[in-house]
């Protein structure tokens, strides 16, 4: 199993550099960058900067296929693959529905749109002249000007079971997030999809990205509760119903979030929710918890954010513990 590290596109330059300097490149395998749709940062530019400042793989995890059109994603990813000389990985997904809606972006037919996007991206990267018409796209003898020698791995960052099955059918990898007890069900769905097309789960790189926090003191978990409240507010109830988290409790939390803000919602995050949504403890606890996911065929686990009280020190400690274990 590989250990990755995760940041988001809104991370400031100095913090990103500090994290990249803390990374032991013999321990970590990939830097994943999540796209903050509500912050004014370009995830592709952040990925480019990261590729030029580390020797690790760098992945976008994820960008919404509804936020940018397919040719733009294709050429941005191809550019990044060239910047990183083949170290770039592209994560695509539907994206946060609330954010997309607030930006006036329509989300229609997510399953067929994801399949269509993955297929077209590969055709474009292969240098084909592509003609294709659908409700979202109209490509007429479209091609990229320059050929790309690297086939970029496509990861699906999706949660619904049907989308996970699709990931099993067509993706190179899948980025899973959500309650821990849901993850097993999610991997099963990926496996089902893979088997439908005579692939195996081993053909798909399964990545798990949950918030992770190195902490020895309970009081530091307060910031983790805020993160969990925020994530629970955006997690579909169908996903929560596959976990140990009680859906009714989440509905109450959402109401609190709407009426009293994040602090009010964070106060309703109980230990069950915390345990389901976040990895925490000392460095050894965290590494053992992450490694335990190997039994459900997880290939890579992402450490961070919030990392810990002292980010750089936490990253170093987790890397040391990972090496020991």
């Amino acid at each position, binding site marked *: 199993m590989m250990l990755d590290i995760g940041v988001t*596109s809104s991370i*400031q*330059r100095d913090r990103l550099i500090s994290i990249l300097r803390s990374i032991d490149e013999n321990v970590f395998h990939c830097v994943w960058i999540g796209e903050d749709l509500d912050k*004014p*940062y*370009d995830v*592709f*530019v*952040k*990925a*480019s*900067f990261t590729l*030029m400042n580390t020797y690790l793989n760098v992945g976008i995890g994820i960008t919404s296929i509804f936020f*940018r*059109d397919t*040719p*733009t994603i294709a*050429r*941005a990813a*191809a*550019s*990044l693959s*060239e*910047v990183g000389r083949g170290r770039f990985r592209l994560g695509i997904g539907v994206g946060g529905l609330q954010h997309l809606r607030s*930006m006036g972006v329509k989300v229609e037919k997510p399953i067929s749109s994801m399949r269509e996007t993955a297929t077209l991206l590969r055709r474009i990267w292969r240098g084909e*002249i592509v*003609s294709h*018409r659908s409700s979202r*796209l*109209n*490509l*007429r*003898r*479209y*091609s*990229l*000007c*320059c050929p790309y020698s690297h086939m970029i791995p496509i990861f699906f960052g999706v949660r619904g079971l049907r989308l996970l099955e699709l990931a099993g059918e067509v993706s190179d990898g899948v980025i899973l997030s959500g309650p821990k007890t849901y993850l097993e069900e999610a991997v099963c769905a990926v496996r089902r999809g893979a088997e439908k097309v005579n692939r195996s789960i081993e053909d798909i790189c399964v990545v798990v990205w949950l918030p992770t926090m190195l902490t020895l003191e309970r009081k530091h978990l307060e910031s983790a509760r805020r993160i969990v409240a925020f994530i629970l507010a955006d997690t579909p109830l169908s996903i929560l119903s596959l976990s140990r988290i009680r859906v009714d409790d989440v509905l109450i939390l959402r109401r609190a979030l709407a009426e009293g803000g994040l602090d009010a919602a964070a106060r309703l995050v109980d230990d069950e929710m915390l345990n389901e949504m976040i990895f925490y403890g000392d460095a050894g606890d965290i590494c053992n918890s992450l490694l335990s996911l190997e039994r459900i065929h997880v290939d890579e686990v992402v450490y961070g954010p919030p990392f810990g009280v002292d980010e750089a020190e936490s990253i170093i400690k987790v890397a040391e513990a990972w090496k020991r274990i």
Partner: protein
Amino acid sequence: MEEDMKYGLGVNADERLQDIVESSVEMERLGLHYIWVADSPSLRYSPVIASAVAERTSKIRIGLGLLSPLIHRPNHIINSLVTLMDLYGERFEVCIGPGDINQLRRVGIDVSTVKSLPNLLIRVREEIDAGLRREGFNVKVWIGAQGRRLLEISRFFDGVLLNYARPKHVEWAVNILNSYGKDGLYVGVYAPSYIYKVRDESLYKLLRVSSATVALGASDSTLKRLGFYERLRGFKRLLAEDSRLEDFLDEIPDDILEEFAICTCRSELTRIISDFKRLGVTHVIFSYPQVLSWENSAVLSGLPA
């Protein structure tokens, strides 16, 4: 006081990334002021290329564009600029415009059906301005213009990049700009270029491609005014019918293509520059394929201020 002429190199983002970056480093060393990274649906993604250029340079200004709001939402443009400036400092500028109609057609966008394009561009410029100001940045926003409609709205921008190469065409555009007067408007010439010491036919061939792209992307009214419409309309139709430029490039007359490009030896360039300067041009950007030859890019050192 009259400002010194500023020079830049346009990169098309379909060269090898390493070549673009190395040329940019060389241009900075030679004292050029700008690298403009072109953008179109079939080229590399310009903000990523700009970041690769910025990573290896420290002073040279980097222009993004032309970015078409028909494929880039205003918040995408803002996000790219904010991220680039956060990472590499405030040395970025942006040019917006409709974009190459033939390239846009390839991704399903028919520019002729876009309602009130000038108003759209003005609105996008305002949104970019407001978004960047919110983040504490102030960036020069240019418009890429060729025809009268866009020249007339240039006054709403910080500068205008003219897609012309000949002083007589620039003069026509500048007269329109002057009639709508805006003090301090920067006027740039952005043209396919090949300035050489010794002419290389393979580069000249690439210049023809670049020049044909501009010529066939021009509006019918622009081509009529220049007297090329009748001779080019057949080729325009072929592109509209999804033929590819390389299928008929050799049939496009040289004399037309040369009207859209700066193709000259270094000694002759000084005279052209002085004509531009007399017309009020403040920036000259030598676009593709100038970047492809290091030897020929070196001829851009020591241009008149």
